[in-house]
């Protein structure tokens, strides 16, 4: 029973979601909407579980003075401070909560995102080293695309932007579509395996 019930639930809802996609009847549209509402409700409870496990994990590490416990303290302080500010003055405009969010959280996220520029440079350096024929072709295609996307490329020759567009629209698109077909078929096959219960590792059962 412990194994069968979740598989039956998965099968019923899997088939329902598949059918509702093709059948534009209100009964299915309403059912789909109900499922989405349920997911929101389940998510809120899951988030509570997540927050609780976050608290327990960090408190345990702090109380045991484990290695690098100061980082756990910072994480817990952040969580506590935001909860306190949210309940104290709300989350509306000009509230301390929103001020902290706009002036601490957002800049920190932007900082992490901006690191991407440096990582792209280091990855491109490694990827574009012409060690063999394939890498040399990749380097040439990369250079062509860079030149084709900046004004100097157009100034050198009007053919460069055209060639860059061709590289993107023909060989690159062909490769991407090949991968996309594989991903699409893989997704359908995996979904089928899950719906009929062949694949059930996600239930904690092999």
């Amino acid at each position, binding site marked *: *029973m*412990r194994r069968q*019930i979740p598989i039956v639930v998965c099968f*019923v809802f899997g088939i329902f979601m598949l059918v509702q996609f*093709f*059948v*534009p*009847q*209100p*009964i*299915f*549209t*309403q*059912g789909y*909407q*109900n499922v989405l509402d*349920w*997911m929101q409700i389940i998510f809120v409870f*899951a988030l509570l*579980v*997540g*927050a609780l*496990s*976050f608290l327990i994990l960090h408190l*345990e590490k702090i109380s045991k003075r484990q290695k690098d416990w100061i*980082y756990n303290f910072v994480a817990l302080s952040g969580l506590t401070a935001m909860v306190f500010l949210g309940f104290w003055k709300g989350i509306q405009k000009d509230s301390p909560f929103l001020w902290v969010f706009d002036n601490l*959280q957002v800049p*920190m*996220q*932007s900082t*992490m*995102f901006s690191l*991407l520029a440096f*990582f*792209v440079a*280091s*990855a491109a350096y*490694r*990827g574009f080293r012409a060690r063999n024929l394939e890498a040399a072709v990749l380097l040439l295609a990369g250079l062509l695309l860079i030149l084709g996307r900046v004004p100097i490329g157009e100034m050198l020759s009007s053919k460069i932007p055209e060639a860059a567009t061709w590289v993107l629209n023909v060989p690159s698109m062909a490769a991407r579509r*090949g*991968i*996309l077909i*594989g*991903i699409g*078929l*893989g*997704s*359908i*096959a*995996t979904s*089928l*395996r*899950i719906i009929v219960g*062949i*694949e059930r*590792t*996600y*239930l*904690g059962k*092999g």
Partner: protein
Amino acid sequence: MNLKGNIRSLISIFVFFVSFSSTALAAEEVRWFDPQKTGLLIGILITIILVFGFILYVKKKGSLKIRSIPGLEAMDEAVGRATEMGKPILFSSGLGKMERVATMASMNILGSVAEKIAEYNTPLIIPNYDPMVTTVAQEVVKESFARTGHPESFKPENIYFVTQSQFGYVAAVDGIMLREKPATNLFLGTFEAESLILAETGNSIGALQIAGTDSTIQLSFFIVACDYTLIGEEFFAASGYLTKDPMILGSIKGQDFFKLIIGVIILAGGILSTLGYGYLINLLGK
């Protein structure tokens, strides 16, 4: 789940159907099929027939051989390397939630990887973006450890929820990599802009990295920064490849066969279109 839990699940399904049917049955009569989705329906039906056809074929024949996938062949090496170095293995399923097929595929791979890890008693760290994925990952790893006869090695505190902020998650995982110095990083799941930041940080600490995702844009970043990358359907075939389950292998063979059919149709469409016959292209475009 005990008997009470099972009954509760059945009642939930019943309530679900009653709640939506009562509100919708009174609605006006409309179409039973959306004709704009005919092509998609045919495609899905062919996939279903092929997948189940090959599953039945495998059931009769016993086993099937699928091509070697280097990224999955390296899984043993990845676990062995971490064990020899006495360092942990980091597993990330990225930003995906449980309803995504890529996350499901990621959990399926985690089950097989955790079995290998349990045998060597190597620490496995799984920081998560989604609380629901955290719970599933804990359950999957716990069962895998129990299945291999090492339930005592399971450490639930190593599988935890971090944050729902995309770059907050990246900062946390990067921090874990720099502090814990894992010997192996497994990035398998749904990844977005953070893929390269994670993979490059992993590269900087010298970790062996295996990645797989369903995003074609992020695949290019992983290919550059990781040692092995599971491309396209390889990612979804991983669980069958690792477990050698004949039923899963049969379904993989079915999807491969359909891919072959699509390839032939594309080739035929290209030739016919070049010769000035647009019939096939027009038919498939519907």
